[in-house]
């Protein structure tokens, strides 16, 4: 199966380990990987800030970048959810509407792709430790994908998963929200950190780097000894592979 990787700008720039883990897991599951190099960003930061016209440029670039892909898989429910908004944004645009629909139909978040397209829940990963999972808002609500991360994590040998209180509450990232309304965002991430601490977990897992950079950055600032890992890194913890460890904040 041919899979085009959508790395997302955060992973590309800040946490390449996550992208590498994703590629290695997908390859182990038999996928043939390619990386259309003209991809940049889904356009969400400017779109969510109200700069519709400007964000369309980024979106158009992405539609072209993945035009010839069979499947597009990314390590972020939020960025994939943005792809899923394209048909609405380009509705009635003769040049782009069909391309937008096509991109939506072949785009999957990483865990969603593994469970729903590849039909796999046990990727053979093992990781000793106690973890809690932060469900990102865009993945659960906008993309509507609630279960696949849990289905995969439940199969990771040695991993104990602790429920997170108020798991539905946003961590305060919200893209540009975190820099435009920093006082509110800070209180939100602070509360999230408190809930994470209460689980007693030593690993925080999520499927979105935005949330992880936000929560991880706050945990680190507060000196909390919780390690953050993207779910791709967890699923890539494999006996035959040298452990890369979690990404750092």
């Amino acid at each position, binding site marked *: 199966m041919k899979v085009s*990787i959508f*790395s997302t*700008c955060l992973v*590309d*720039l*800040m946490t*390449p380990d*996550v*992208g*590498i883990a994703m*590629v290695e897991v997908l390859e182990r599951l038999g996928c043939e990987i390619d*990386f259309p*190099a*003209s*991809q*940049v*960003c889904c*356009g969400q*930061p*400017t*779109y*969510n*800030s*109200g*700069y*519709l016209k*400007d*964000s369309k*440029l*980024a979106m158009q*670039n992405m539609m072209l*970048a993945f035009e010839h892909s069979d499947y597009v898989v990314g390590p972020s429910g939020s960025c994939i959810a943005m792809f899923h908004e394209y048909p609405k944004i380009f509705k009635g645009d003769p040049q782009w509407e069909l391309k937008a629909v096509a991109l939506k139909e072949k785009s999957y978040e990483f865990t969603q792709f593994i469970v729903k397209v590849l039909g796999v829940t046990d990727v053979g990963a093992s990781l000793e430790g106690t973890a809690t999972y932060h469900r990102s*808002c*865009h993945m659960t*609500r906008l993309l509507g994908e609630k279960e696949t991360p849990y289905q995969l994590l439940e199969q990771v040998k040695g991993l104990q998963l602790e429920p997170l209180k*108020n798991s*539905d*509450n*946003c961590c*305060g990232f*919200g*893209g540009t*929200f*975190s*820099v*435009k*309304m*920093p*006082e*509110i*965002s*800070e209180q*939100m*991430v*602070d509360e999230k950190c408190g809930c994470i601490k209460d689980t007693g977990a030593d690993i925080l897992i999520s499927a979105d780097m935005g949330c992880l950079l936000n929560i*991880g*950055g*706050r945990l*680190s600032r507060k000196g909390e000894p919780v390690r953050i890992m993207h779910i791709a890194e967890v699923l890539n913890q494999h006996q035959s592979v040298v452990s890369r460890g979690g990404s750092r*904040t």
Partner: protein
Amino acid sequence: MSLQTDKRDFSERTLDGLGDSFMRNAVGSAQDSLKTRRLSAATTLGDWEQWRNVGQLIRQHTLQNLDYYLEQLADNVEKQGGHVYFAATKEEASSYIRDVVVRKQATKVVKSKSMVTEEIELNRVLIEAGCELIETDLGEYILQMDDWDPPSHIVAPALHKDRRQIQRVFSEKLGYTGDETPENLAGFARTVLRQKFLEAEVGITGCNFAIANLGAINLVTNEGNGDLTAAIPKTHIAVMGMERIVPTLEEMEVLDNLLCRSAVGQKLTSYITVMGPSAAGETDGPEEFHLVVVDNGRSDILGSEFNEALQCIRCGACLNVCPIYRHIGGHAYGSIYPGPIGAVITPLLGGYDDYKELPFASSLCGACTDVCPVKIPLHEQLIMHRQNIVQQRRTGAGDRLQMKAASRLLSSPALFGRSLRFAHSASRLMSKRGRIVRGPALIHGWIHARDLKQPVKQQDSFRAWMEKRKGGAEQ
């Protein structure tokens, strides 16, 4: 009180909210308990999603045919001897009501909680006309006694106050000598207000839904004050936002179920009443019934991109799940309509001049959209507001420059590639031990509270890794 409850800057109001630890505790625990109660009440209905779909269908159908249903409503109210007044503006609405009260030579007026009467500044108008006006909803009464402190929640207006504050207000203003238990405070209010109901000449209520084919209004309450307000005084004036209407009792029943469960997690509230002008032979209820239908900016929303905001049934569920409301509280919105729905409708009713920050007070987490019983796409409407605000060039010049630059960078592979090369070295100047400690204003807020590691070197980026691999494979 008008739509606007606080003229200070949004940032000032926010800091006030963030600094009020009692309020934040109260809101947090209220949210947590209401969320659980809502969920359990929703699940007993069968397929909640199906109920939401029907709720949405009913609201959209009614809005699409609003002129027809309002006319039918007016005809049916008048057939029973009631009066209907259509008010295009808030001034028209409140003057009409003042005129009715003055003509009845009434000086004692009781009110039952109504958001729209806040919007039309009815309390001020009636007090200026010399009336003794009493809010009878317990929460609203507490706020009135505390010199008209603004409400902070659609359903629980005094959520921001604790029992000791309430005890102090009652003792200073009403001579209350009891303790601070909610039971005794409520019991005291019952005694005081019972007398007010019995003396009142005019009762004023809001309206959850008007029923077009019956010519009646529907009130949904728990305290019983709405019913007493409409049963005892000889004149009842009901005030409704023009969109709050259903074709028949069957649609009302669906919406009331959605409302009660979404608002307070009850199957039905204690009192759901369908009422109109008193019928022949009935000895209580209003001898004179007025229904005031208020536009006040709503028709401008109708048929616009924000049309769906008019589907709102004022259940407050979006407040109860909103992580922003959770931390800043209702007063920070500076409007009688707080929370996500407030951030959508306040700028529509009050304009961007005063409210252009509200649509940005959201992380777009979508919790509000998810919970809305009539499926208003709240977070999408916030984005539409942001687009309007950007288009009208109401965002700061700095913001515009940053966003324009960002959009160029994020849409051009060449520029992005080049910036990858620069990002690491540029951030080195701002970093200590791999963590960014200084930077452009844009990231001040971020690094104030969080560590941020430096971007990786270009040769360590993910795309560089992919290219190296590809190169390796091809060789």
